[in-house]
């Protein structure tokens, strides 16, 4: 940012220096492209393929976001530091994900397990009694392991769908 700060002196007319004279139809074309992408992302899941859904949904979301950011928000002609700053913010969020995922995203790890999470998953499935397709391999792998013991944290509550909060057992 420091480099940018240097070159960032008051420059009220900088926009004129970048060509901004696209005709209105240029934006309409971009818009049409975005709509096509939208249709694909909605149609993607209908093919019923998990990986394909992920690609169409999130890949296209990324592409759409880039198009909007670059062309509608004129990031393509903004100063370079804006990109750096936005990407830095995204990296900060990514950093948070990397540090946190090992604890929050797992059912168990080195020397710890989350019995309440197993229990929650079970009850969740029961609540949606349909339960025909559990195509998620993850959850089933984990579920196949025996529940070690019913933990306090989960036992004291009314279960996954319960509205009331757990009450302390004794004071």
């Amino acid at each position, binding site marked *: 940012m420091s480099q940018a700060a240097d070159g*960032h002196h008051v420059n*009220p007319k900088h926009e004129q220096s970048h060509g901004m004279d696209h005709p209105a139809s240029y934006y309409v074309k971009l818009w049409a492209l975005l709509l096509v992408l939208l249709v694909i992302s909605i149609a993607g899941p209908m093919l019923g393929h998990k990986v394909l859904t992920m690609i169409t949904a999130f890949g296209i979301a990324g592409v759409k976001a880039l198009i909007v950011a670059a062309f509608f928000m004129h990031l393509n002609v903004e100063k370079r530091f804006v990109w750096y700053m936005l990407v830095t913010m995204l990296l900060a969020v990514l950093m948070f994900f990397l*540090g946190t995922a*090992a604890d*929050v995203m797992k059912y168990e790890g080195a020397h*710890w397990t989350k019995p*309440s999470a197993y229990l*929650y998953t079970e009850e969740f499935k029961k609540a949606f009694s349909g339960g025909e397709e559990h195509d998620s391999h993850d959850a089933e792998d984990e579920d196949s392991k025996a529940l070690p013991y019913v933990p306090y944290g989960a036992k004291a*509550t009314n279960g996954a769908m319960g509205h009331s909060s757990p009450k*302390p057992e004794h004071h």
Partner: protein
Amino acid sequence: MTTHASADHAHGADNHGHHELTFLQKYVFSTDHKVIGLQYFMTGVFMGVLGALASYVFRMQMAFPGASVPGFGLVTPQIYNQMVTNHGTIMIFWFAMPVLIAAFGNYLIPLMIGCDDMVFPRLNRLSYQIFLFSAVLLIASFFVPYGGFGGAWTSYPPLASNPVYNQTPYGAPMWLGAVALEFVAFLLGGINFITTLMNARAPGMKMYDIPMVVWMIVIASILFMASVGPLIAGAAMLLFDQTLGTGFFDPARGGDPLLWEHLFWFFGHPEVYVVLLPAMGIVAEVLTVFARKKLFAYRTVLWTAVATGVLSFFVWAHHQFVAGIDPRMANIFTVTTLLISVPITEMSFVYIGTLYGASIQLSTPMLFAIAFIVEFLIGGVTGIFLGASGADIYFHDTYFVLAHFHYTFVPIAVIAVFAGVYHWFPKMFGRYMNDTWGRIHFWGTAVPFNGIFIPLFYTGMAGDHRRTFDHLNFPDLARADLIFWRQFATVSLLIMLGFQVIFFINFFYSMFRGKKAPANPWNANTFEWVAASPPPHGNFPTLPHCYRGPYEYSVPGRATDFWPQNEPAPKT
């Protein structure tokens, strides 16, 4: 962005017609950065006094458990928890941050970079109003039924998220709401600082000509901005947990209490550097002025500050080593934590190096600045015990931790602030503060401060745990020596608080009756001393031009030992 910033800026300048303003315009709805800065300062100091009184109440309880505290009454566990929680919250969010960043930032940034005001004056005013409202909300939370929030400033769920557990159904959401509003206020303020520095510098002021304190405040603002977002989202989630009964942090409903810990400390650790860096900046200014010496290796200081800021995003889980995170992660975070000691050490060495070959005048601000380095070094070294995973198993959540971070936060938020106040008081009010009383105040602050926290290192090593309202409930901690040191710490606190009265008398007396000060009483180089004392609305008669770096003191071959930034080089 630049365009609009400067356009708004021009717009703001138009509004600043130099006509007489009514009282309301001048103080309540002022958009002048100096007024807003002083408002932040006064509000922050007021909250700081509240926080200090809270510490009086619970330290008395620690030293004399069960006895009625003079001037307060009996301390119940509920009151104790509430005091501890709000002491921490107030001191960090309503004292350190507003005074160090908002007050000094607002007051100094436009003056030091040579412009007439912030680029978004009205955003600035909005930021202060939100901040003031959040302070009122926090104070109000003491007086609702069931009392204020008492779940520690970290506010870990499920204790914080469920009234069944924390037993403060109204205090907890109000506390959380106040903190969230405060974050919003500082986000707005931070945006303003960053944009101002980028767009409104005096002509000729290059990157390495910016005074260090401005850099530090801006880097701190950037850190704040990049780290606080997830916690704002987290605060919304916790608020819904508290009020609507959602289950974001309830393990029985798929939530995870550790998620909050991560959200909190992902912000919480950069926050330490958010308040540290401005204090470092203030000390750099004071040191150079009173040592009549150029800052040792300006670029090194700047880049170590940047490196500290970047690294601070990688270390947060060292607050959670034994909090149930995966033990393998602790190794990674130990490495990063030890790594962050490198730039901080280097910065400290550079500050000491600045004193080499200097001509030191031990005035009150200088005494405080040197005390900052002395005490902060202790705080930094004791931090290594806590950052190293193996030692942290024992020290986690003991009074050792408490003493450690007070050894960083008190130099930052108290000692460096005093250095700054004594240094810039002539600029703010056009009068000197009394130097003799200043020195008495200094010794009455710096010595008892060590008297408070060195004993607490000891009791922490002996196993005193934090936030325990009566250690005598634990037979191992009812030892005579520990009881003695707890009382010693409390008495030191009373002495230190007593000496602050001198400061307030000196401050308010000097404001009206002090000796008149000229525009540049310390013969300093930076732009704020070019303006009159106190600076009028609009700051400078003509906006200055920058010719050199801020620390050109004792340049050989010059008649005077300072060389202001706005003075053109003599023609050769």
